[in-house]
């Protein structure tokens, strides 16, 4: 991993059209501004990881659909 030191208001350029700017530093937190083309999706890594994880557990669900059908026939719920 490339590691660089930046100060408040300094930026990085990634490729030709992504700019990452350090907006604010405060007590262990960093606010970051990202300028990127709309086609580039930016997500918090933990959100991205969590969705991958959810999708992976979703693939295991098919074998339980029969049980779910039985449960729903007992009591439909909203």
């Amino acid at each position, binding site marked *: 991993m490339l590691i660089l030191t930046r100060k408040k208001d300094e930026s990085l350029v990634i490729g030709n059209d992504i700019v990452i700017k350090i907006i604010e530093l405060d007590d262990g937190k960093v606010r970051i501004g990202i300028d990127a083309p*709309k*086609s580039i*999706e930016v*997500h918090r890594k933990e*959100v*991205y990881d*969590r*969705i*991958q*994880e*959810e*999708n*992976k*557990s*979703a*693939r*295991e*669900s*098919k*074998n*339980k*659909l029969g*049980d*779910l*059908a*039985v*449960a*729903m*026939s*007992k*009591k439909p*719920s*909203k």
Partner: protein
Amino acid sequence: MKLTTDYIGEIEYSEEEVLIFEEGLYGFSELKKYLIVLNPAEELPFHWLQSLEDERLTFIITSPFLFVDQYDFDLPEMVAEALEIHTHEDIDIYSLTVIPEKIQDTTINLKAPLILNRNNKKGKQLILNEEYPYKHKIFAKGI
């Protein structure tokens, strides 16, 4: 065309039914072609999303609107463009379902719905900026 799957058995389908997820689903980015197989049990609102490139990969999907009263989010302009969505009527929305060992803990993922253009069959899994849960329990009061 025919596909023999582990779970659903043999499926016959036509090219027009094939859904294209250009970027795949999160965690499955290599797999882009899917088919929705409707549940023959009509009273059950859960259907199958079957990968056409990995016959072992079958998700369970459902309509989130059956389980939540309020589910509103903005469709990013780029996504509408990529899927060629022009009006609300073009869109189908599904949630992936997770059925754990304890059936009463079954959840649907409201944070990352599947968006489909029903006209051209292009789809995408969206990560919403809005605050929706990864795990929304469908049996609010237990079974």
